[in-house]
């Protein structure tokens, strides 16, 4: 979409910090989340279609440069100003800003998530009072940033909706919890932990919520199969479908 990150002029935005489990630095190019080969989605078996050589990179929309349009600039200005007042460097906290399909997304560096959320909630010009929960997304192809947590914040005062996106590498799946700022995120974070294995640091009781307590694995990750999982409880076993007794 755009070439230059609006916040990265002058001082470099994020220092390359990977190596110690911190997300890899961002650039302004579209975010690559994977590579698709062939035409029809088949991954194994011989190629009879002739399209097998086709290689396409899948990218999500990249950073947008100013002006964002509408009230987006106002929110971005206010947020950056409020962060500066607290003695933070906005470029460090906000990795990039994406405007896509009429929606404003701030990609937040995870160390700053709680402070950014608190600012968004408390600043009179921002006032995002309502958090509509967190949605986990797993991008196995986005190396170093596999797990994303997406928050949608709604301001009833100003009638606005923005999105915060935080990412964590699979090797270090930690994101700070927002329960202290938005208590409503209690169950939402438990759900995201249950399905994606994202550990929300500071959550009062991060346990499984949907799956049984002794369930193994995180079922909504991309590498988890859809079905066919053998289950055992009270000593009774339900084998995977391919191992079940068959009736004629």
């Amino acid at each position, binding site marked *: 979409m755009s070439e230059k990150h609006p916040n990265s002029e002058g001082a470099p935005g994020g220092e390359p910090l990977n190596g110690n489990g911190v997300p890899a630095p961002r650039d302004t190019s579209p975010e690559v*989340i*994977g590579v*698709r080969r062939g035409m*029809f*989605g088949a991954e194994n078996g011989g190629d009879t279609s002739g399209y097998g050589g086709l290689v396409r990179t*899948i*990218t*999500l*929309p990249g950073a947008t440069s100013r002006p964002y349009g509408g009230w987006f600039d106002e929110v971005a200005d206010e947020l950056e100003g409020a962060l500066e007042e607290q003695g933070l460097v906005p470029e460090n906290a906000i990795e990039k800003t994406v405007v*896509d*399909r*009429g*929606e404003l*997304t701030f990609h937040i560096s995870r160390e700053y998530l709680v402070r950014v959320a608190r600012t968004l909630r408390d600043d009179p010009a921002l006032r995002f*009072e*309502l*958090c*509509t*929960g967190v*949605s*986990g*997304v*797993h991008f196995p192809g986005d190396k170093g940033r596999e797990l994303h947590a*997406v928050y*949608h914040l*709604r301001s*009833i005062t100003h*009638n606005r*909706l923005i*999105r915060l996106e935080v990412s964590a590498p699979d090797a270090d799946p930690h994101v700070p919890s927002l329960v202290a700022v*938005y*208590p*409503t*995120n*209690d*169950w*939402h974070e438990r*759900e995201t932990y249950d*399905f994606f294995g994202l550990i929300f640091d500071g959550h009062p009781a991060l346990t*499984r*919520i*949907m*799956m*049984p307590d002794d369930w193994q694995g995180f*079922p*909504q990750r991309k590498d*988890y199969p*859809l079905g066919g999982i053998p289950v055992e409880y009270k000593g009774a076993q339900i084998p995977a479908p391919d191992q079940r007794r068959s009736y004629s």
Partner: protein
Amino acid sequence: MTTPHATPRATTEGTVYTVTGGDWDEVVQSAARADDERIVVNMGPQHPSTHGVLRLILEIEGETVSEARCGIGYLHTGIEKNLEYRTWTQGTTFVTRMDYLTSFYNETAYCLGVEKLLGIEDQIPDRATILRVLLMELNRMSSHLVCIATGGMELGATTIMIYGFRDRELILDIYELITGLRMNHAYIRPGGLAQDLPPGAVDQIREFVKKMHKNLPEYDKLATGNPIFKARMQDVGYLDLAGCMALGATGPILRSAGLPHDLRKAQPYCGYETYDFDVPTADTCDSYGRFLIRLEEMRQSLRIIEQCLDRLEPGPVMVADKKIAWPAQLALGPDGLGNSLDHIKKIMGTSMEALIHHFKLVTEGFRVPPGQAYAAVESPKGELGVHVVSDGGTRPYRVHFRDPSFTNLQAMAAMCEGGQVADVIVAVASIDPVMGGVDR
């Protein structure tokens, strides 16, 4: 104490008795002998008055609830994961089964999200949008009717339940006429609707509106002024505005705290800004206020339905873009609803390209440009949000539903703690959680 009916078991939380019947005196005696006064009662997940498979864990002192927690997940269906293995169009079949009492809201929210990703929001035909609104408002009535009916039944007022289900049947008849199914319709599709209204539908809806104008006051007569009903509901399940905002409660719960927040007014979708209706509120913050709001919302829904009927004009119900629109209009055959025979004759007999197009679109589906979108509708329970992510393929990459039941149910603890055990049921009924939506 060792009896065959209540076996003690030492855990990290103290001694736990699994009571499976028998002599309650023995159980109570042995509990009294223990120096710990705390009694934790597990209610559900299979309990007649917990609204489905909700599990409540109550710590009680006498009749007072000192702590209340929910156990959920007993109906977790993995729908969000299942969606990732089906095409975008097939997705409606799954989402309609999430909160099975508000099917049309799930479908509309999902379709609005997909349409936002496709960038075709402006191309949806007017008739499809009006019909979506019409069906959603009918759905609001049927959902509220079930809420009032089951809520009444849980209080022991069986008459309200019979009334509620009687009127809901009238709405289900309309659904059946229009979509072919009583529940789980998958009628609203990305780009429009599965098919147009069948003949006679408008007349039947008008007939229904007339009947409901007569039936709705019966709930007032039966319940609104009823002293027992009022005594049971008033000041029960109290949650004020600050609590609602912190816990993210929306819908009738938020409006019972006095804030007229309704996405239909605040962030209109499907052309709601052009309809004339009111957002009822109450300032009682309690179950009774929520009941009154639900009743009033049904009246407002009737108003919207009447406006929809007046606006309906003949026209297409699917986007014109042939790359997205389902290739065939459905028709009723001797063996049920299916592809119209005329269409099959055309693609099989005259046009190879149309056949290929049909095959590709139906088996593989359309591609959605990469990106993410959030769409929200005001469901009868509150803000129903959908976060859809596409990777440019023919199947969703990730779909997450922010279900209002799930979020609102978190308020259960705040509403019940410090109250009576019997009031827990009233409070939960006033939240109106549907476990299909909570657990998904």
